[in-house]
Protein backbone atom coordinates (compact mmCIF):
# COMPACT_ATOMS: atom_id res chain seq x y z
CA UNK A 1 0.00 0.00 0.00
CA UNK A 2 1.07 3.55 -0.73
CA UNK A 3 -0.52 6.57 0.92
CA UNK A 4 -0.12 10.15 -0.23
CA UNK A 5 -1.78 12.90 1.79
CA UNK A 6 -2.41 16.62 1.49
CA UNK A 7 -3.72 18.92 4.19
CA UNK A 8 -5.86 22.01 3.73
CA UNK A 9 -6.76 23.62 7.07
CA UNK A 10 -8.80 21.12 9.08
CA UNK A 11 -9.05 18.72 6.18
CA UNK A 12 -6.79 15.86 5.14
CA UNK A 13 -7.11 14.12 1.85
CA UNK A 14 -5.36 10.74 1.65
CA UNK A 15 -4.91 8.88 -1.60
CA UNK A 16 -4.57 5.12 -1.04
CA UNK A 17 -2.96 2.92 -3.70
CA UNK A 18 -2.47 -0.85 -3.77
CA UNK A 19 -4.16 -3.73 -1.96
CA UNK A 20 -5.89 -3.17 1.36
CA UNK A 21 -6.10 -6.47 3.23
CA UNK A 22 -5.26 -7.72 6.72
CA UNK A 23 -1.55 -7.78 5.83
CA UNK A 24 -1.43 -4.11 4.83
CA UNK A 25 -4.09 -2.95 7.34
CA UNK A 26 -1.61 -2.39 10.16
CA UNK A 27 0.47 -0.02 8.05
CA UNK A 28 -2.55 1.88 6.71
CA UNK A 29 -3.90 2.24 10.25
CA UNK A 30 -0.63 3.70 11.53
CA UNK A 31 -0.25 6.16 8.67
CA UNK A 32 -3.86 7.37 8.87
CA UNK A 33 -3.65 7.71 12.66
CA UNK A 34 -0.57 9.86 12.38
CA UNK A 35 -2.27 11.97 9.71
CA UNK A 36 -5.26 12.71 11.97
CA UNK A 37 -3.26 12.86 15.22
CA UNK A 38 -3.59 16.66 15.33
CA UNK A 39 -6.98 17.18 17.09
CA UNK A 40 -7.60 20.20 14.84
CA UNK A 41 -8.26 17.82 11.95
CA UNK A 42 -12.02 17.53 11.43
CA UNK A 43 -12.27 15.85 8.09
CA UNK A 44 -10.52 12.88 6.49
CA UNK A 45 -11.23 12.14 2.84
CA UNK A 46 -10.04 8.72 1.70
CA UNK A 47 -9.57 8.61 -2.05
CA UNK A 48 -9.93 4.93 -2.95
CA UNK A 49 -9.64 5.25 -6.72
CA UNK A 50 -6.26 3.48 -6.84
CA UNK A 51 -7.12 0.70 -4.39
CA UNK A 52 -6.87 -2.45 -6.52
CA UNK A 53 -8.22 -4.86 -3.92
CA UNK A 54 -10.00 -4.60 -0.60
CA UNK A 55 -11.66 -7.18 1.62
CA UNK A 56 -13.45 -6.81 4.96
CA UNK A 57 -10.16 -6.01 6.71
CA UNK A 58 -10.45 -2.60 5.03
CA UNK A 59 -13.84 -2.00 6.68
CA UNK A 60 -12.27 -2.33 10.11
CA UNK A 61 -9.56 0.18 9.21
CA UNK A 62 -12.05 2.73 7.91
CA UNK A 63 -14.49 2.29 10.80
CA UNK A 64 -11.66 2.72 13.33
CA UNK A 65 -10.65 6.12 11.83
CA UNK A 66 -14.34 7.09 11.59
CA UNK A 67 -14.67 6.51 15.35
CA UNK A 68 -11.68 8.69 16.19
CA UNK A 69 -13.00 11.53 14.07
CA UNK A 70 -16.64 11.36 15.11
CA UNK A 71 -15.56 11.38 18.79
CA UNK A 72 -14.14 14.85 18.14
CA UNK A 73 -17.12 15.98 16.06
CA UNK A 74 -15.37 15.37 12.74
CA UNK A 75 -16.21 13.19 9.79
CA UNK A 76 -14.80 10.72 7.30
CA UNK A 77 -15.60 10.75 3.59
CA UNK A 78 -14.95 8.18 0.87
CA UNK A 79 -14.06 9.27 -2.66
CA UNK A 80 -13.48 7.44 -5.92
CA UNK A 81 -14.70 4.08 -4.64
CA UNK A 82 -14.20 1.37 -7.32
CA UNK A 83 -17.25 -0.80 -8.05
CA UNK A 84 -16.04 -4.03 -6.36
CA UNK A 85 -15.16 -2.16 -3.17
CA UNK A 86 -18.45 -0.26 -3.29
CA UNK A 87 -20.24 -3.62 -3.08
CA UNK A 88 -18.44 -4.40 0.18
CA UNK A 89 -19.24 -0.96 1.56
CA UNK A 90 -22.91 -1.37 0.65
CA UNK A 91 -23.40 -4.77 2.28
CA UNK A 92 -21.68 -3.48 5.41
CA UNK A 93 -24.01 -0.48 5.73
CA UNK A 94 -20.96 1.75 6.17
CA UNK A 95 -22.56 4.53 4.13
CA UNK A 96 -24.86 5.22 7.09
CA UNK A 97 -21.75 6.43 8.92
CA UNK A 98 -19.35 7.78 6.33
CA UNK A 99 -20.34 9.91 3.36
CA UNK A 100 -19.29 9.73 -0.23
CA UNK A 101 -17.25 12.84 -1.15
Amino acid sequence: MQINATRKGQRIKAMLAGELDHHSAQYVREVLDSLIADPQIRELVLDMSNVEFMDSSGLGVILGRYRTLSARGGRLLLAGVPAPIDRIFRISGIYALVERA
Partner: protein
Amino acid sequence: MFKNQMHLQFSSLSQNEAFARSVAGAFFSQLNPTLEQLTDVRTAVSEAVTNAIIHGYRNREGLVTLEGYINGSSAKFIIRDYGIGIEDVALARQPFYTSHPELERSGMGFTVMETFMDEVEVESSPGKGTAVTLEKTLRREAQ
Protein backbone atom coordinates in the same frame (compact mmCIF):
# COMPACT_ATOMS: atom_id res chain seq x y z
CA MET B 1 -16.54 -31.57 -19.43
CA PHE B 2 -13.46 -29.74 -18.22
CA LYS B 3 -12.22 -30.91 -14.82
CA ASN B 4 -9.25 -29.69 -12.92
CA GLN B 5 -7.98 -29.64 -9.39
CA MET B 6 -5.23 -28.16 -7.27
CA HIS B 7 -4.13 -28.39 -3.70
CA LEU B 8 -1.97 -25.71 -2.10
CA GLN B 9 -0.43 -25.61 1.34
CA PHE B 10 1.35 -22.56 2.74
CA SER B 11 2.62 -21.00 5.97
CA SER B 12 0.16 -18.91 8.01
CA LEU B 13 1.94 -15.63 7.25
CA SER B 14 -0.07 -12.53 6.43
CA GLN B 15 2.06 -12.09 3.28
CA ASN B 16 0.36 -15.22 1.99
CA GLU B 17 -3.10 -13.62 1.96
CA ALA B 18 -2.24 -11.87 -1.31
CA PHE B 19 -0.45 -14.99 -2.56
CA ALA B 20 -3.45 -17.25 -1.85
CA ARG B 21 -5.95 -15.01 -3.61
CA SER B 22 -3.60 -14.77 -6.62
CA VAL B 23 -3.48 -18.56 -6.77
CA ALA B 24 -7.25 -18.89 -6.49
CA GLY B 25 -7.69 -16.20 -9.14
CA ALA B 26 -5.23 -17.83 -11.54
CA PHE B 27 -6.94 -21.20 -11.13
CA PHE B 28 -10.47 -19.77 -11.48
CA SER B 29 -9.39 -17.83 -14.61
CA GLN B 30 -9.42 -21.13 -16.49
CA LEU B 31 -13.23 -20.77 -16.56
CA ASN B 32 -12.93 -17.39 -18.34
CA PRO B 33 -14.91 -15.54 -15.68
CA THR B 34 -15.89 -11.90 -15.94
CA LEU B 35 -13.75 -9.44 -14.01
CA GLU B 36 -16.52 -9.17 -11.43
CA GLN B 37 -16.70 -12.93 -10.92
CA LEU B 38 -12.92 -13.06 -10.60
CA THR B 39 -12.98 -10.34 -7.95
CA ASP B 40 -15.74 -12.20 -6.09
CA VAL B 41 -13.56 -15.30 -5.83
CA ARG B 42 -10.39 -13.41 -4.96
CA THR B 43 -12.23 -11.53 -2.21
CA ALA B 44 -13.99 -14.55 -0.70
CA VAL B 45 -10.77 -16.61 -0.66
CA SER B 46 -8.92 -13.69 0.89
CA GLU B 47 -11.52 -13.57 3.73
CA ALA B 48 -11.29 -17.27 4.48
CA VAL B 49 -7.48 -17.35 4.34
CA THR B 50 -7.21 -14.26 6.55
CA ASN B 51 -9.52 -15.91 9.09
CA ALA B 52 -7.39 -19.06 9.08
CA ILE B 53 -4.28 -16.98 9.78
CA ILE B 54 -5.61 -14.57 12.40
CA HIS B 55 -8.38 -16.55 14.07
CA GLY B 56 -7.43 -20.18 13.39
CA TYR B 57 -3.76 -19.79 14.26
CA ARG B 58 -3.91 -16.46 16.16
CA ASN B 59 -0.79 -15.45 14.21
CA ARG B 60 1.14 -18.49 15.42
CA GLU B 61 2.85 -20.66 12.84
CA GLY B 62 0.77 -23.25 11.10
CA LEU B 63 -0.16 -24.52 7.66
CA VAL B 64 -3.15 -23.34 5.68
CA THR B 65 -4.46 -25.36 2.75
CA LEU B 66 -6.36 -24.11 -0.26
CA GLU B 67 -7.93 -26.70 -2.51
CA GLY B 68 -9.49 -25.80 -5.85
CA TYR B 69 -11.79 -27.89 -8.04
CA ILE B 70 -13.20 -27.05 -11.45
CA ASN B 71 -16.05 -29.15 -12.70
CA GLY B 72 -17.63 -27.94 -15.93
CA SER B 73 -18.63 -24.34 -15.22
CA SER B 74 -18.43 -24.64 -11.42
CA ALA B 75 -15.52 -23.87 -9.15
CA LYS B 76 -15.14 -25.00 -5.57
CA PHE B 77 -12.49 -23.85 -3.09
CA ILE B 78 -11.83 -25.35 0.33
CA ILE B 79 -9.74 -23.37 2.82
CA ARG B 80 -8.56 -25.39 5.84
CA ASP B 81 -6.63 -24.63 8.98
CA TYR B 82 -5.70 -26.94 11.85
CA GLY B 83 -6.04 -24.25 14.50
CA ILE B 84 -8.41 -23.41 17.32
CA GLY B 85 -11.70 -24.05 15.52
CA ILE B 86 -15.04 -22.33 16.06
CA GLU B 87 -17.32 -23.15 19.03
CA ASP B 88 -20.53 -21.72 17.58
CA VAL B 89 -20.52 -21.56 13.79
CA ALA B 90 -24.00 -20.03 13.52
CA LEU B 91 -22.93 -17.16 15.77
CA ALA B 92 -19.63 -16.71 13.91
CA ARG B 93 -21.47 -16.37 10.59
CA GLN B 94 -23.71 -13.55 11.81
CA PRO B 95 -23.02 -10.17 10.22
CA PHE B 96 -20.88 -7.95 12.47
CA TYR B 97 -20.03 -10.76 14.88
CA THR B 98 -16.32 -10.80 15.65
CA SER B 99 -14.39 -12.31 18.53
CA HIS B 100 -11.68 -9.68 17.96
CA PRO B 101 -13.14 -6.16 17.91
CA GLU B 102 -9.89 -4.97 19.54
CA LEU B 103 -8.06 -5.95 16.33
CA GLU B 104 -10.53 -3.76 14.41
CA ARG B 105 -12.09 -6.76 12.74
CA SER B 106 -15.45 -5.81 11.25
CA GLY B 107 -17.17 -9.17 11.68
CA MET B 108 -18.17 -9.03 7.99
CA GLY B 109 -15.88 -11.76 6.64
CA PHE B 110 -18.47 -14.53 6.40
CA THR B 111 -21.08 -12.08 5.11
CA VAL B 112 -18.73 -11.03 2.30
CA MET B 113 -18.11 -14.71 1.43
CA GLU B 114 -21.87 -15.37 1.37
CA THR B 115 -22.56 -12.34 -0.78
CA PHE B 116 -19.88 -13.10 -3.35
CA MET B 117 -20.19 -16.87 -3.65
CA ASP B 118 -23.15 -19.15 -4.41
CA GLU B 119 -22.50 -21.51 -1.52
CA VAL B 120 -20.54 -21.16 1.71
CA GLU B 121 -20.17 -24.12 4.04
CA VAL B 122 -18.29 -24.03 7.34
CA GLU B 123 -17.15 -27.14 9.17
CA SER B 124 -15.23 -26.69 12.38
CA SER B 125 -14.20 -28.61 15.48
CA PRO B 126 -12.88 -26.69 18.47
CA GLY B 127 -9.21 -27.51 18.96
CA LYS B 128 -8.95 -29.23 15.59
CA GLY B 129 -9.53 -26.58 12.99
CA THR B 130 -11.87 -25.20 10.39
CA ALA B 131 -12.75 -25.90 6.76
CA VAL B 132 -14.59 -23.32 4.68
CA THR B 133 -16.03 -24.43 1.34
CA LEU B 134 -16.80 -21.77 -1.24
CA GLU B 135 -18.61 -22.52 -4.49
CA LYS B 136 -19.44 -20.51 -7.56
CA THR B 137 -21.08 -21.57 -10.79
CA LEU B 138 -20.78 -19.43 -13.90
CA ARG B 139 -24.01 -18.95 -15.71
CA ARG B 140 -23.81 -19.64 -19.42
CA GLU B 141 -23.75 -16.03 -20.63
CA ALA B 142 -20.57 -15.46 -18.62
CA GLN B 143 -18.62 -17.98 -20.64
